[in-house]
């Protein structure tokens, strides 16, 4: 008989908690297992290396892989200098004051903008106003706005984590400020910065709303960044929504989830090693 005293209640709560936790983790694991069960068998070499044909009903997803790659490269190409520069500025060149608070506020607000609004914005500015039309360039730039806050945040943290001694040693040797940053601080902060980049990549792979409105959904193999292209996530969305081909949809989903899991895991491992280095 369960006594309703304190130890009894504790056991009760513990059981309840573990049931809830178990179910939660169970749901999340189930999702992955389900996708993999239906999708991993689809990941043949043909699937990965052939272009989509017949609107995605047959063939593979190669064109989408390339589009995704281009998109990520463009997004990072813009977001990294901007983000890293901001982080360096915030940490090395200023002290806490109105300016830094303003910049941080801006960054945090930027982080909170929902993807559909960014899609709207990207559509109106890059696709229409700049005249680039639906293109990987428009998509990449819109995406870079989304990645900027993450890169700023992680870069800032990693730069701050570099011990002050490193810098002081460099200064005492007569090395200028910028050289110190590039030769000493950045290389030491590299794992943390890399984590931020890697997390951004994982996020870009799964992003859909922003991309549909800016990069379009053309199935063609993209021959230039001014062309429209369909990323894997968008391809999956269209396949699933229109019921074009279930096997293809599952396969695309599987590779999406696989890539994201692998990338996130590597980011986590990099971060662990980084923390170990400094503690």
């Amino acid at each position: 008989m369960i006594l309703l005293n304190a130890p009894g209640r504790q056991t009760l709560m513990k059981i309840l908690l573990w049931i809830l936790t178990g179910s939660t983790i169970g749901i999340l694991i189930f999702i992955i297992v389900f996708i993999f069960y239906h999708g991993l068998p689809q990941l043949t070499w043909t699937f990965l290396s052939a272009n989509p044909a017949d609107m995605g009903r047959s063939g593979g997803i190669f064109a989408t892989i390339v589009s995704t790659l281009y998109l990520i490269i463009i997004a990072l190409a813009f977001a990294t200098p901007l983000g890293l520069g901001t982080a360096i500025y915030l940490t090395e060149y200023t002290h806490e004051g109105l300016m830094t608070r303003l910049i941080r506020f801006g960054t945090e607000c930027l982080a909170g903008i929902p993807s559909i609004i960014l899609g709207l914005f990207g559509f109106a500015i890059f696709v229409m106003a700049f005249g680039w039309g639906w293109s990987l360039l428009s998509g990449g730039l819109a995406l870079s706005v989304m990645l900027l806050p993450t890169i700023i945040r992680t870069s800032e943290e990693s730069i701050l984590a570099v011990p002050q001694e490193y810098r002081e040693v460099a200064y005492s040797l007569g090395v200028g400020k910028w050289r110190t940053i590039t030769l000493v601080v950045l290389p030491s902060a590299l794992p943390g910065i890399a984590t931020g980049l890697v997390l951004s990549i994982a996020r870009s792979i799964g992003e859909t709303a922003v991309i549909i409105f800016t990069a379009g959904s053309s199935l063609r193999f993209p021959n230039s960044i001014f062309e429209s292209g369909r990323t894997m996530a968008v391809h999956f969305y269209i396949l699933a929504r229109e019921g074009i081909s279930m096997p293809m949809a599952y396969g695309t989903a599987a590779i999406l989830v696989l890539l994201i899991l692998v990338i996130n895991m590597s980011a986590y491992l990099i971060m662990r090693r980084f923390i170990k280095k400094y503690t």
Partner: protein
Amino acid sequence: MGVFVKGFIITAWYELMDPSEVRPLLKKKTTSWGIFWFIFGLFLPGCFPQNSSQVQSLTIAGSTSVQPFAEKLAEIYMEINSNKVIINVQGGGSTAGIKACQEKAAQIGTSSRELKVDEGNLNKVIIAWDGIAIIVHPANPVRNMTSRQLRDIFSGKIANWKALGWLPKPIYFVTREEGSGTRDAFEHLVMKKIPISDEALVQDSNGSVREIIASNPQAIGYISYGVVNRQVKVVAVNSVQPNLKTIKDNTYTLTRPFLFVTLGQPALPVQKFIDFVLSKEGQGILEQEGLVGVH
């Protein structure tokens, strides 16, 4: 321009980083440089826009009903022309396509409805005729409906399948989004000024409407006849079943044209594609896919 940008990046990099001192500090230097140049190399072709006269680029945007057919035509056309032409087909809906054409975002806008008054200044070409099929779940025994019944269902007046002779279950009717040419044609041909109830489920493409009907026994919706497949059942309207013959001779009244819309006279490469679509070969492809040709 791409070359200058890359040159600038490289010189700036060297100026600011001074690799000779960085080299001993970064452990995996060779691999990181290797990765850098690899990505650069991948990226290289992408920076040169295809504006040269050798490869033409054509954007076709608009109706989701027309989209699969346009894609099929584009695929074959590009093969025939040994890929000297790149055709990008987008969806977005008929209204979006017409707008894209007006705003020069696309060379050809596709539409599955007639042009409106304020779109009259555009050049239009009918490339095929399509029927709007009323579809239900295969388990649904209803075989025929009158236009009036359809109208009442979609306006919410008839809300239960028992009014049509089936089980007493609520009717879930699915419509397209407001900018859809298919919806516009449906409203024009069936609803006739009576608004579609706001209880209607809304989806933004033929395929997604079909998917809902295929999985929900109590659902009913309308899609392009060319998109019908085995997963749904087509209901006769006013006792006429839609098929290539009844659409062609208009005994099946729910028919609408597929249009290619251009801003003024189309440029030569665009015109050549349109000619291909209107040719015997192009029309043959369309008829094979379930549309009715214009001849």
